[in-house]
């Protein structure tokens, strides 16, 4: 268990007489003990059955909190991907012709079965990906079930989605999802595709395949017809095979902008439909009239939620100059009380970084920030001796040309910039090739509406941050991709209109 590195006395010395109960008592460990019911080895899920990969190869899924193997995962080869597509194509005629109310009932069943096993899945998610159990339990799992519940109800209402057009499913859809919200991204992808009558071949990220393959058990238990959903596991090569397969009527990808561009190049000239949900470098803008205590909580949630492994993370903080001196000390104070450590502990705020490679990337960018002259602040908390961890990090004195202000870090690293006028805030916020999300903190309603109009971002959070809902369309402008997920708008990307 992590212990505070500083003594209470050392920590409060020199600061104002703030009452900090966390300094007076230490936390006892509070591990979540539900059984994740893991297997030693997971197979591919093709045509309703768990089957060994034809190549006979497996890879390890690592628990990032320990650095040790959690399970062995089947490595799909091209023949396996092909078998998955053929199974999906065989299943498509019957699935797409099934009355919408029956497709709906399958999705409702899936939502219920996931709710039944939510705690088990939350523990598995945390062990496989490193996110705090509090988040997988209170966010990932309920939200994943909510996506199936929401989309289920659309399955028999296709004619209401696009006014004036006849809506039909596309066919087989290839989907490739990232490691930051493994099960939730799966739900975002599967639920609308299935509700609209498509069949799916999905590849989870190679570091987080476990909950996807556990989810296959739910599909089986729900009695979903074989081949409607197929899971193939592995790394980028398998993803490329899923994207390029000729039977894919459409591909949907969530991940980095770099890979998104590679997919676009790969599919250039094929006419294949695509939706891409890519990276971000969101500005979280704090005006001088904002409720500062709330704003500070919003900033912390915006960047440290899920270790900052969030495409819409508020990674650039834009503070109005007149309140910067009040906001930054409060932020530092708040950072000192974030608990970094065992993801399975119910008191943990920041868990493990998803992989060794990602940790190296974050460290590299933090080092670049220091090298380029920004002021780095990290609280002196002790990190666990094993696993992949990093302290929450705050950079002040950041300029727009710094790499930490331009590149997506995908870690718990916040870059602080200042501005004077509304116009300057908008210009700085939009000065990025990305355009996924933005935050605005102000007491003035007209200013919120002005900013939400002028910010080039697909989602704008006003006096809140990192809120999601299956009914609320999510997706980016510019190099953050195209297409929306959620709401009526998200369904249109899984339909052929006309």
């Amino acid at each position, binding site marked *: 268990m992590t212990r505070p590195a500083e003594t209470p006395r050392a920590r409060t010395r020199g600061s104002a007489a703030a009452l900090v109960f966390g300094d007076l008592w230490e936390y006892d460990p509070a591990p979540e003990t539900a059984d994740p019911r893991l297997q030693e080895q997971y197979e591919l899920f093709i045509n309703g059955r768990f089957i060994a990969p034809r190549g006979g190869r497996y890879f390890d899924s690592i628990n990032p909190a320990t650095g040790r193997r959690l399970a062995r995962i089947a490595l799909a080869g091209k023949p396996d991907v092909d078998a998955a597509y053929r199974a999906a194509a065989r299943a498509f005629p019957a699935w797409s012709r099934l009355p919408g109310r029956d497709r709906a009932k399958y999705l409702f069943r899936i939502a219920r079965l996931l709710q039944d096993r939510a705690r088990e899945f939350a523990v598995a998610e945390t062990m496989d990906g490193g996110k705090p159990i509090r988040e997988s339990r209170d966010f990932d799992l309920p939200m994943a079930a*909510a996506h199936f519940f929401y989309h289920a109800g659309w399955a028999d209402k296709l004619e209401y989605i*696009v*006014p*004036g*057009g006849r809506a039909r499913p596309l066919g087989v859809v290839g989907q490739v999802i990232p490691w930051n919200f493994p099960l939730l991204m799966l739900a975002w992808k599967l639920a609308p595709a299935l509700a609209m009558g498509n069949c799916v071949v999905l590849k989870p990220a190679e570091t987080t395949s476990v909950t996807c393959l556990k989810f296959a058990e739910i599909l089986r238990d729900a009695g979903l017809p074989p081949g409607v959903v197929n899971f193939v596991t592995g790394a980028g090569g398998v993803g490329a095979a899923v994207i390029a397969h000729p039977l894919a009527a459409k591909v949907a990808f969530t991940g980095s*902008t770099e890979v*998104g*561009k*590679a997919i*676009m*190049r790969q*599919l*250039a*000239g*094929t*006419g294949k439909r695509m939706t*891409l949900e*890519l990276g971000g470098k969101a500005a979280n803008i704090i005006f001088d009239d904002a409720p500062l205590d709330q704003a500070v909580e919003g900033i912390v949630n915006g960047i440290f939620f899920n270790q900052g492994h969030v495409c819409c993370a508020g990674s650039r903080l834009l503070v109005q100059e007149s309140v910067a001196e009040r906001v930054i000390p409060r932020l530092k104070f708040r950072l000192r009380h974030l608990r970094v450590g065992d993801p399975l502990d119910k008191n943990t705020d920041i868990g493990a970084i998803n992989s060794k490679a990602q940790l190296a990337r974050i460290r590299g960018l933090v080092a670049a920030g220091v090298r380029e002259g920004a002021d780095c602040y990290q609280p002196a908390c002790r990190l666990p001796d094993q696993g992949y961890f990093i302290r929450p990090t705050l950079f002040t004195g950041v300029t727009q040309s710094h790499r930490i202000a331009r590149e997506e870090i995908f870690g718990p690293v916040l870059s602080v910039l200042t501005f004077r006028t509304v116009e300057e805030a908008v210009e700085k916020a939009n000065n990025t*090739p990305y355009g996924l999300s933005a935050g605005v903190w102000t007491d003035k309603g007209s200013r*919120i509406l002005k900013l*939400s*109009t002028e910010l080039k*971002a*697909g*989602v*704008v*959070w*006003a*006096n*809140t941050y990192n*809120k999601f*809902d299956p*009914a*609320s*369309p*999510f*997706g980016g*402008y*510019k*190099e*953050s*991709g*195209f297409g*929306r997920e959620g*709401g*009526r*708008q998200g369904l*249109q990307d899984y339909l052929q*209109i*006309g």
Partner: protein
Amino acid sequence: MPRLPIIKTPKVLVGGAFIRSESGRVFPLRSGAGAAVANIPQCTRKDLRNAVELAAKAGPGWARRTPYNRGQILYRIGEMLESRVAEMTDALCWTRRGSAGRAAAAQEVSQTIDRLVHYAGWADKYEQLLGSVNPVAGPFFNFTVTEPMGVVGLIAPAEAQLLGLVSLIAPAVVSGNTVVALASEQNPYPAIVLGELLATSDVPGGVVNLLTGFQRELVPSFATHAHLRAITAVVGPDHARTLGLGAAESVKRLKVLPAGDVDFGDNAAQGLSWIRALVECKTTWHPIGA
């Protein structure tokens, strides 16, 4: 003795002005019978870049116009075309032969007017169909509105030189986008006349920019210009691939309509889906509370 007429020099509309290519190059337009009828500007990459810059400048003002105003301006283009039906029919007929060709050209002009009227009516309506208020599970007012994407590149079909071009322009500008369009290489003359109509239709300068020239010279620059946020192109497979590769560099939204696949005379070549293809959806979350 009959009067000797003067011949109009073809110029293209860019940034509200009529220009020849910066290169000074022209290419001859030949009639169906093979006679040279006009020297058309052979626009270059630099002309494209200039046009994109002017389109970008015109963008915010055009997007801020009220939908009602944009609708009236689109209707005005239709009015102007109605009053110049004969001239536009002649322009289409440069490369068409016989009375059948002339009848088809006259029909194409009529259809183009109807298409403009169709989109004029959409200006203040599509938002209610594409946007939404979203019933989220929490104390938030959550709504989604559309926004224009910015500067859109259009590559018009070789055939249907007027109807095809206008069918690409109208759904782009109705939502507040500004466009840079490459006219048909086969017969760019209708685009020259269209420019003259647009200049007298209350369309602000820079909102519609028309280039004439060769696809093989300009498609690669359309593909990679980072300020073009979207491209709709009626092209063959080679150009489709070039556009796809270029679009990847800046994650540009690309819609390729295979040449010959779209019947622009059909009602399927208009409507809400054409508008939706060139807007972004923005979702705003606002807490409900004191």
